[in-house]
């Protein structure tokens, strides 16, 4: 059983939803982002999503755009991101790690070599924002060979006729993009989520995570009442950004981000199922 499936099955048994915090690799520097990554499981992360910095992140709002710019300035590369996962795996073999990003750096690295190296580093799944099902064959065979789950995005614009096509070949969990918009801007209404999730649930056995626009512990708790997992990204990066001094990490940067991870995790764990 894959780490993602094992973790989510275990949480189901426990009767609670999963928390998936996000960090951008190398933001604001390699050491700080490694410290955040390494501290996330103890702070309550059930799975971890790591952003692979890209110069042109077309689905991201200003907060994650700026995180990517800081990371690239700090020397982020795809191999550097894999090295972070490798270092994380030296002391954590259970927490699933998912890489999220855009296709071009993977193409430049070479899809086959990337999947092999990602698997060896301890990556469990991939979310490639600009790789819709129509183009998925570019990575599907290499990812399958390396045992990496390709996590598919479902959006409010994905209608019932299209949903089976999106779910075909999906692995790990389904990532529901809760708003029509970019990351970190607005939040979905609970009533919209309550309407959107059941049709997806009916079409797949995969767990469902909700992301885009979840900012507070209360929103995260609402999300796991409706779905199986909540992804929080921009809100954590905002905390990180606020702690920077002239673009550099302050002494409290990692601790503040991890405290916020803890607060959200506590809210999710308090939800009765």
């Amino acid at each position, binding site marked *: 059983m894959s780490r993602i499936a094992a973790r989510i099955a275990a949480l189901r048994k426990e009767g609670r939803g999963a928390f998936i915090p996000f960090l951008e690799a190398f933001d604001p520097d390699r050491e700080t982002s490694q410290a955040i990554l390494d501290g996330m499981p103890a702070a309550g992360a059930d799975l971890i999503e790591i952003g692979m910095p890209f110069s*042109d992140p077309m689905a991201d*709002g200003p907060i994650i755009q700026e995180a990517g710019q800081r990371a690239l300035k700090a020397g982020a590369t795809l191999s550097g991101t894999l090295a972070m996962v490798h270092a994380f795996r030296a002391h954590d073999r259970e927490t699933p790690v998912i890489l999220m990003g855009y296709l*071009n750096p993977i193409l430049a690295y070479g899809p086959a070599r990337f999947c092999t190296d990602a698997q060896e580093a301890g990556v469990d799944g991939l979310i490639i924002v600009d790789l819709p099902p129509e*183009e998925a064959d570019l990575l599907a065979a290499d990812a399958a060979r390396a045992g990496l789950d390709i996590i598919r995005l479902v*959006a409010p*614009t994905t209608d019932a006729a299209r949903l089976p096509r999106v779910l075909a070949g999906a692995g790990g969990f389904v990532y529901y993009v809760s708003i*029509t918009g970019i990351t970190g801007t607005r939040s979905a209404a609970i009533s919209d989520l309550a309407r959107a999730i059941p049709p997806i649930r009916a079409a797949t056995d995969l767990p469902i995570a909700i992301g885009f626009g979840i900012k507070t512990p209360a929103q995260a708790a609402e999300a796991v009442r409706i779905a199986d997992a909540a992804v929080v990204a921009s809100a954590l990066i905002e905390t990180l950004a606020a702690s920077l001094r002239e673009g550099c990490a302050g002494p409290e940067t990692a601790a503040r981000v991890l405290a916020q991870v803890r607060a959200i995790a506590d809210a999710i764990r308090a939800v009765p199922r």
Partner: protein
Amino acid sequence: MTNFANSLRAGPDERGRFGAFGGRFVAETLMPLILEVEAAYRAAKDDPGFQRELDRYLRDYVGRPSPLWPAERLSAALGGAKIYLKREDLNHTGAHKINSCMGQILLARRMGKTRIIAETGAGQHGVATATVCALFGLPCTIYMGAVDVERQKPNVFRMRLLGAEVRPVTSGAATLKDAMNEALRDWVAHVDDTYYLIGTVAGPHPYPMMVRDFQSVIGVETRAQILDAEGRLPDAAIACVGGGSNAMGLFHSFLDDETVRLIGVEAAGRGLDTHEHAASLERGRPGVLHGNLTYLLQTDDGQIEEAHSISAGLDYPGIGPEHAFLFENGRVQYVGVTDDEALAAFLLCTRTEGIIPALETAHALAHLTKLAPEIGPGGVIVVNLSGRGDKDIFTVARHLNAADLEESP
């Protein structure tokens, strides 16, 4: 030479691929919209009523057909082949951009869209978009890099005069690629009412095909006009290439005519072997940006690099996927022209023909100065005079010195 058994004009395939290039690399939120645009476009294309309406606007509003001008003094000055200029600069708004804007705005109306967004570099596409939006009374938002807003002030004012909202983009390097990122972000957030009117033969399928189809009126007219004037096809056709829409528009009608050399001119900026150019084909590698797989200027790690050109309209690190296909199979030859060469050709055309070309167009003219003597007397060359240069006179003034202006070619 070709991967297509019958015709190079048959692409793209059902996946929106020209050979290996093109496709639909967009986030899931946009995917249903892209498919909707494609279905609407295919239906419009098959509807004679749509074509009749478009033809009427192109004739009575844009001013088509544009003339094919025999440039006698320019031909004499270069001492070689006979040169014809396809006068896209005479279109309403002064460039070829309006051909595709007119087609797309009619499509947007047909789809019931009530808001238009677009990206622009030099501002020509922004002006053309703002123009058709004024004509049909649709609100429009134009994304433009903050750097370009600064260096193309006259066009920014034109757009605002026409009622468009110009939003300066400060993310990334604040130029055309960032404007396109921002337009895509806007589209994702306004999927219900908004149509994204892309300015070139790039972006996710069906845009490269659709924009090419709307621009191919250039080549269709040129072909008939040159046959009428010379009784034969030209030996060569030249166009500048940024994203590549005026070049695809000219080339498409000639792709299957093996005797016609087709030459796309990329901006070599300060030189192809510097880091300041926009030569995606000659110095880039295949990759994915803005929804399509094509040649891109990028680092070894797959980060997109900034392009440079004296011409804001060629200042883009990618190129339309059909050009990438035609480059790889060798049907079209791509060459680079530097900023300095373009400036010299700008002056030459202005002084010999009384036509001030856009700096983009001046790149095509600069290659013409090399090719006309090579093809020699008896030969015929067509150049796409893709736009007029009024917008560029301040840039040119900064680069020319008094001595340049005193010389008369």
